[in-house]
């Protein structure tokens, strides 16, 4: 359901031309759990931005659920982000001084979900990630792992096509990091497509497929679980 063909992203800052992505092509089917790995500067962040409709390629095509995303305007990209993509960020990005429940409800504001459905839906997903008794807590009252779980519930609330996680365990202690990965694996078993950016092999191993990126190119694309990196 995702097709990336010959996508390049080139930044022109004055005289210097930076090639962030160089003719990248791959596809991801529904229900996959993919990790995108690479060192910093490899282009993995750029690739994530394009997959998440936060940015558009300089050339090439990105097709999501049969729709070309690369040529959409700002409002249309916002629609895609709202309905088809569920973001999970490294820094959680919850609104401060706002309850977990209200945080989860944010995407529904821009989807015009009927008001009476919003709270029940948000409660359902918060329960799913195990935070039924923390719904009114604000981020300052939640641990890193708990905040990320709120973020996951927020990402799920409009039933997106893909969950896009950018270094989801980067700010979390290892014990809770395992809990987060367990949640992702459970979601994937239930049929969600998950794409995860990470630079940690231990985390990447939880995925079923690892795409390695270096210098803007894909250097390896294969199964997870004890995958050895060939540089």
């Amino acid at each position, binding site marked *: 359901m995702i097709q990336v063909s010959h996508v390049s992203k080139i930044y022109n800052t004055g005289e210097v031309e930076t090639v962030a992505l160089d003719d990248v092509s791959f596809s991801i089917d529904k229900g996959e759990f993919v990790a995108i790995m690479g060192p910093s500067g490899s282009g993995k962040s750029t690739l994530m931005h394009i997959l998440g409709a*936060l940015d558009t390629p300089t050339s090439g095509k990105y097709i999501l659920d049969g729709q070309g995303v690369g040529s959409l305007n700002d*409002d249309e990209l916002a*629609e895609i982000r*709202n309905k088809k993509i569920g973001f999970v960020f490294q820094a959680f990005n919850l609104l401060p001084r706002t309850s977990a429940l209200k945080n989860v409800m*944010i995407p529904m504001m821009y989807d015009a979900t009927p008001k009476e459905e919003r709270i029940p839906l948000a409660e359902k997903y918060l329960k799913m990630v195990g935070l039924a008794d923390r719904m009114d807590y604000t981020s300052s009252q939640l641990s890193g792992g708990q905040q990320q779980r709120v973020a996951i519930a927020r990402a799920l609330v409009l039933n997106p096509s893909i969950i896009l996680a950018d270094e989801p365990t980067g700010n979390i202690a290892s014990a809770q990091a395992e809990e987060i990965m367990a949640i992702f694996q459970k979601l994937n078993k239930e049929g969600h497509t998950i794409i995860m950016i990470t630079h940690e092999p231990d985390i990447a191993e939880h995925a079923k497929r690892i795409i390695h990126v270096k210098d803007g190119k894909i250097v390896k694309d294969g199964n997870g679980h004890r995958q050895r990196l060939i540089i």
Partner: protein
Amino acid sequence: MGVNKLRTGLAMLGIIIGIGSVIALVSLGQSSQAAVTNQIESLGANLLTISPSSQRGEFIQGGAGSATTLTLEDAQAIASSPSVTDVSNVSPEYSRRAQVTAGGKNTNTSIIGVQAIYSTLHKVSVAEGQFISDGDDARQLKVAVLGPTVVQDLFGETNPVGATVRISGQSFRVIGVTVSKGGTGFGNADDVIYVPLSTAQKVLFGATSLSSISVQAKSSAVMTAAEDEVGYLLLDRHKISSPANADFSIFSQNDILNTASSVTGTFTALLSGIAAISLIVGGIGIMNIMLVTVTERTREIGLRKALGAKKKDIIAQFLIESIILTFVGGVLGMFVGILLSFVISKIISLPFTIAFGSILLAIGVSGAIGILFGWYPARKAANLQPIEALRYE
């Protein structure tokens, strides 16, 4: 927004002060206008004052002049002529200053010779005794009605009715005291003595003409018509063909009212203009705070955009915040303004009025300022790129 209450409050302060002062000024302006109108009309409403022409420029207590062109017959003609249809009352008057003594005291004051109709036309009422009657006038009686200031000067706190005063050496019996009217800019209406017209002319001062004729129009709508009718009648009686050569002048109370209105009106408009400038300053303060707020919430904006907010959603979010800020400031300013005009009107003894129109305008203006000065920050927020915004520290 409730985050930093102090900052929000300070931002609102400009709007509160601006709206408050506009409302207070407009209310006070209206009050003073009403007060001036009331003062002028307390001396009689819809009045035309006819003066002989050499006394042009002098008002009620005009000094001894050489003009003798107005006569009692003129006044009677105005009252009875079929060509004059818009006039209700006519009051012929003769006034002059004279030395007055009573007991051991003396004063120099205005003596006004009047007929009974004077009290109706000029809204003079008696506090003690009675006013000059037509009988007094017909018999040229030496009776006097004193104004409160004269009573104070000659009799102190004693009731002077029945006592004797000497006017220019002649004895008069006091038959009444008038109710105080308060001083206006047109001479102190309480510092007078009323005597019958015929007594003033024939017994006191040896005059055959009048110093003025006061004419009351039937309503303010027909004042101009009345002025024309009286003017033409007198020109005809005095056998003058061209109005430019008239030997009298007609002064309309409307003119003073209009001038007074426009003076207070201009003054109010000027002060309100200055207050409006403070509203602009307040709006700039709002824009400033909104810009700071946008910067502080850059990550939040980036997040919302990542979750699907479109530009118009972000603009709406911040514009609404800005409007709420100015609207609340406007409502608070309204209360401040009403309170202020109440306090000030008590201090300078003006009637307290609330100009509802200006309140609605002020509320509307405060909302408009929210839109106007909130627009730029809202647009700035909406144009943030989500990727950079999310990275913002």
